[in-house]
Each structure stands twice: as structure tokens, then as C-alpha cells.
């Protein structure tokens, strides 16, 4: 393959050299000398403008008492916003709900995803079609999916309670019940993202060394034993990465929660994301919102740095 590529690229060389000769030689030289930082510069600049600067600005605002009422008169109040945040039960409620949602959704996704991947791990007719079907929940617009599931969860006209009725189970309020709302939302997330785990694990399974399985078969292991003692241990790095990737994204879930419940009923589904959004754009308490955002930002950044460090130390 490499040889073929080189030969294919050969005709381009002469064209390339003539081209270089046409351009003003000094500009070319200048670019080449500094390419190390010239190439990444536009990207870095953009990231600075759109990410670093806004975050620093947020940090600054979090130290003020800016909200809709104070209008123009903003005063510096130091860490008061943070103190108030720590006294605010809704803040801790949102953290609790975020963790509840994430652990429930990702936990089930990983178990289901791995199981399905193990089942599908063989060549069969229609495998590509199945993979395509599995892709669809992931690429379908979450807002549209959220609204469709809202209809599904409708207590009177929705399929959800109809299905429950068929199974002989009592009807549920689904999104209207403060107990069932997080599980209902988690179910949507599970439907959307289990395929992601499955596809990652399938890719991982394809790259496992065959010798281990052959050795196990020679030793007379049953399929279940093989799965438990050979496949799963070998898959551990892949499953861990999939789990971590999904956790990071699940913490950021916003679209489906906003569209289906906006944090309701009451505050029963107000995750940290939604809470920060409400503070910013519902109540326009920018000072307080900034403090919450700095908290959220720090939390997620800490988790991610932890993950990066784990990957480095454990060579994942």
C-alpha cells in the first residue's frame, strides 16, 4: 500500500516544484520557517476569542451583583455570589440530579451496549444494515427525538401507558411525576446512546488478538466462560474509554431535558446545566449565574483532567 501511494504521488512532485518556483521565494521561506506556530495560529486565536476570553469574562462577572434589576449599576461584591450559591438548595439539588441522571443512563448504556456488541460480534447477512439502524438514534436531532418521546410519554394519548397497559402494569405519569421524570429522561438517553457503546465495543472486539480465543477453545472453555474470562478482560480498556466518553457527554445533556421538561416538574429534573441556563436566561441574574457556571466549569474541567491523567498513568 505504501509503495503504491508513493508512486501515485510522484507526478505531483514536478508540478509542486514548479509551483514553488513561481511563488515569491522569500514569502515561502518565511512561511516554512515559522510554520510551527503559523499553522495553528488561526485556530488558537479563535479558541482564545471564543473560549478563553468568555470564560475569563464570566469569572469577572461572577464577582459582581449584576442582574436585570440593577441594570446599569453593577458593583463588585467579591465572593458573595459563591457564598450564596453554596447556601442555595437548588444548586445542590441540581448537582444531585445531574449525577443521578448520568449514573443511571450511562450505567445501563454500558451494560446493554456491551451485551449487544457481544451478541452481534460475528459476520452475518445484514450486519451493515443493523449498524446503520444503530447509528440512527445517535444522529437524529435530539430536539426532534425529545418531542417525539414527549408524545410517547403523554399519560392519556401516548404509547407509553398503552404499552404498560398491555403488560398489565399501572399507568405512569412519566415526565409529570417527580419520581419518574429522571428515569424517563434517562430512558431517552439510553435509547439514543447505547448504540454508541455498541459500536465502540464492536470496533474493539474486531481488534482483539485471536490467539487468546483459540487457546481458550482448545482448552475446552464454554462460550460463557470465554466471555467472562477472555473477552471481557481484554475489552476492559475499550469499555472504560467508552464509559468515560459517554459520562463526559451525559454530564452535558441539555437538549432533551430542556425540550421535554425544562427542569420540571418543579425542579425535579433541573440538572446543573438547566439550572445554570435558568439562572442566566430565565431570571437574568448574571452575577449568580456566572458563579454557577464557574462552578460547573471547574467541576467538568477537574473531571476531565482526572480522566486525562488516568489515561496517561494506566496507558489506556
Amino acid at each position, binding site marked *: 500500500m505504501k509503495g503504491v501511494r508513493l508512486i501515485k504521488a510522484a507526478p505531483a512532485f514536478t508540478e509542486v516544484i514548479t509551483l514553488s518556483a513561481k511563488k515569491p521565494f522569500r514569502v515561502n521561506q518565511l512561511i516554512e520557517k515559522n510554520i510551527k506556530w503559523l499553522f495553528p495560529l488561526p485556530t488558537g486565536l479563535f479558541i482564545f476569542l471564543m473560549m478563553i476570553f*468568555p470564560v475569563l469574562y464570566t469569572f469577572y462577572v461572577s464577582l459582581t451583583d449584576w442582574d436585570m434589576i440593577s441594570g446599569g449599576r453593577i458593583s463588585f461584591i467579591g465572593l458573595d455570589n459563591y457564598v450564596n450559591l453554596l447556601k442555595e438548595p437548588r444548586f445542590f439539588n441540581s448537582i444531585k440530579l445531574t449525577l443521578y441522571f448520568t449514573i443511571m443512563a450511562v450505567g445501563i448504556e454500558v451494560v446493554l451496549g456491551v451485551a449487544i456488541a457481544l451478541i452481534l460480534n460475528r459476520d452475518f447477512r445484514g450486519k451493515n444494515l443493523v449498524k446503520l439502524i444503530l447509528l440512527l438514534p445517535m*444522529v437524529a436531532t435530539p430536539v426532534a427525538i425529545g418531542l417525539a418521546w414527549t408524545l410517547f410519554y403523554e399519560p392519556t394519548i401516548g404509547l407509553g401507558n398503552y404499552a404498560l397497559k398491555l403488560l398489565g402494569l399501572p399507568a405512569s405519569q412519566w415526565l409529570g411525576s417527580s419520581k419518574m421524570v429522571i428515569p424517563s429522561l434517562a430512558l431517552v438517553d439510553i435509547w439514543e446512546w447505547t448504540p454508541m457503546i455498541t459500536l465502540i465495543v464492536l470496533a474493539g472486539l474486531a481488534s482483539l488478538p485471536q490467539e487468546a480465543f483459540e487457546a481458550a477453545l482448545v482448552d475446552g472453555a464454554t462460550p460463557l466462560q470465554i466471555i467472562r474470562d477472555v473477552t471481557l478482560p481484554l475489552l476492559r480498556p475499550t469499555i472504560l474509554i467508552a464509559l468515560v466518553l459517554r459520562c463526559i457527554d451525559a454530564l452535558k445533556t441539555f*437538549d432533551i431535558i430542556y425540550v421535554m421538561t425544562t427542569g420540571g416538574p418543579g425542579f425535579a429534573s433541573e440538572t446543573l446545566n438547566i439550572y445554570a441556563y435558568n439562572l442566566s436566561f430565565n431570571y437574568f441574574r448574571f452575577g449568580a449565574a456566572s458563579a454557577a457556571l464557574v462552578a460547573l466549569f471547574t467541576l467538568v474541567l477537574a473531571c476531565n483532567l482526572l480522566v486525562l491523567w488516568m489515561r496517561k498513568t494506566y496507558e489506556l
Partner: protein
Amino acid sequence: MKKRWDQVGWNEVKRIKWKEIGWYLLVIMITIPFIFPLIWIIAAAFKTQAQIVASPPIWIFKPTLNNFKSVFMEQDFARFLWNSSVVAVASTVLSLLLGLPAAYSISRYKQQTLGVFILVARLMPGISFLMPWYILFSKIRMVDTFSALIASHMLVALPLIVWIMINYFDGLPRELEESARVDGCSIQTAFLRILLPISGPGIITATTLSFLFSWNNFMFSLVLSTHRTKTLPIAIYNFVSYAEVSWGNVMAAAVVIITPAIILTMIFQRYVIKGLTVGAVKG
């Protein structure tokens, strides 16, 4: 020698390999939950309101195009389609222009810190940027402009493209550029004329995923666009904000939003899978 049907004995029946059928049934059972909601959405888009809310649910019905007609004529959906397309294409193209060189540099010169710096943008929740963006863009009167929206989408697309392309460039042999440089070609020309043309698969993956995520993006448009630049996800959400929900319209709108994503995924299935699993599997 083929036997007549009444001559077939138990042996032939056993040869039908019940295990295979059982397995295929299992596969179907696994696949159905994932595709059923989508089929239901499409079916509902062609139903009347009465048919949708009927319980027990109606499986066989006469389809109607009224919902689509209403969505496009009364709700001006074509404009939102256009807005979403403009933002998705622009943010993807601009992110490619910025991200490809950056990914190349990070990959070839092992600029780890820079790489981490860019990737952090991908890990952070969008809401943490949304508030300062809203304030800052309001100050320069740029809310509800395409530029603000495109820039916000780029903050998602750029790290994604850089991440995918770094992984891809890492897998390309350096001999190609090195032979080009030996022949007197500058680094940037080697990048442009040699490396990029063979980076097709990686670029397709990056482009498709970037387009998909921009198309599906809701949060940024929710805050940064009001009337002029309203995108599809916001439009469909607005259908449900009123007291009386016309589910048929909502489902028709959903079909309109989801269809391009599905078509894109069908065409570039291989690349989408590659992009979503990249970096997750070693070697």
C-alpha cells in the same frame, strides 16, 4: 434429486438450521427498539391529529400530506431549512480551513499542550460559554446574526475536526512529505499538494460529523438567534410552546429535520462510525 414436498422427512426440516433462524430473530428483537420510534415519527407525520391521539393506537391508516403542507406554508419552514444549512455549511467549511493546518502541525510536531488546549473546548459544557457569548454579542449588537451563530457552532466543530484529523494524520507515513521536501518542496506545499489529497477519508469523516452536530445543535441557536437566523431545532421546539399542540405538525417537522441527517448517515455510514469511535480503540 429433489423430493416432492410430502416426501420431505424430518432430516430435511432439521437442516433448516433452527439455530440460525433463532439468532436472526434475536438480532431483529435487538434492532426493533432502536428503529421503532423513528418509524412511529414518520407514520405520525402522515396522520391526522385524531389518528395520532387515538388510543389504542392506529396502525393502518390513510396517509395525508396536510401536516407537511401546514409546516411549509403556514410555518415558513423553508426559511429555517435554509438557515440551518447556511450555518452548518459555513461553520464546517471555516472549521476545516482553520483546523486542518492546526491538526497537521500538532500531529507532525507533537505539540501536545496545544492539542490539549484545543480539545478542552470540546469537553466543556456549551452553557458555560453561552452566557458570556450572549452578553458580549449583545454589547456589539451581534445577537441574531449569522456570524455569531456560525462562530458558536465552530467552537464545537473545530475541536472535533482537529481531534479527528490529528488521529488521521498520525496514521499517515511521513515518507511522503519527506521525499517531497528532499525534492525541494516547502512544508506548506507538501501539506497542500501531497498530504491533503490523500486525506480524503479523514476529511470526509470530520466534515460529516461536524455538519451533523451543527445541524442538530439547539442550545446555541436557542439563545443567539431570535427571528432572522432561527434554525430548525428552534423552529420545531416553537411548535410545542403554544397551548394547543398539533402533533401532526410536530412530527412532520421532525421528519424534515431528521431526514437530511439520516440520508447523510446512509451515504457516509462507514465514516460516521469511524468518526464516532475514533480514539476509543487502540491500534
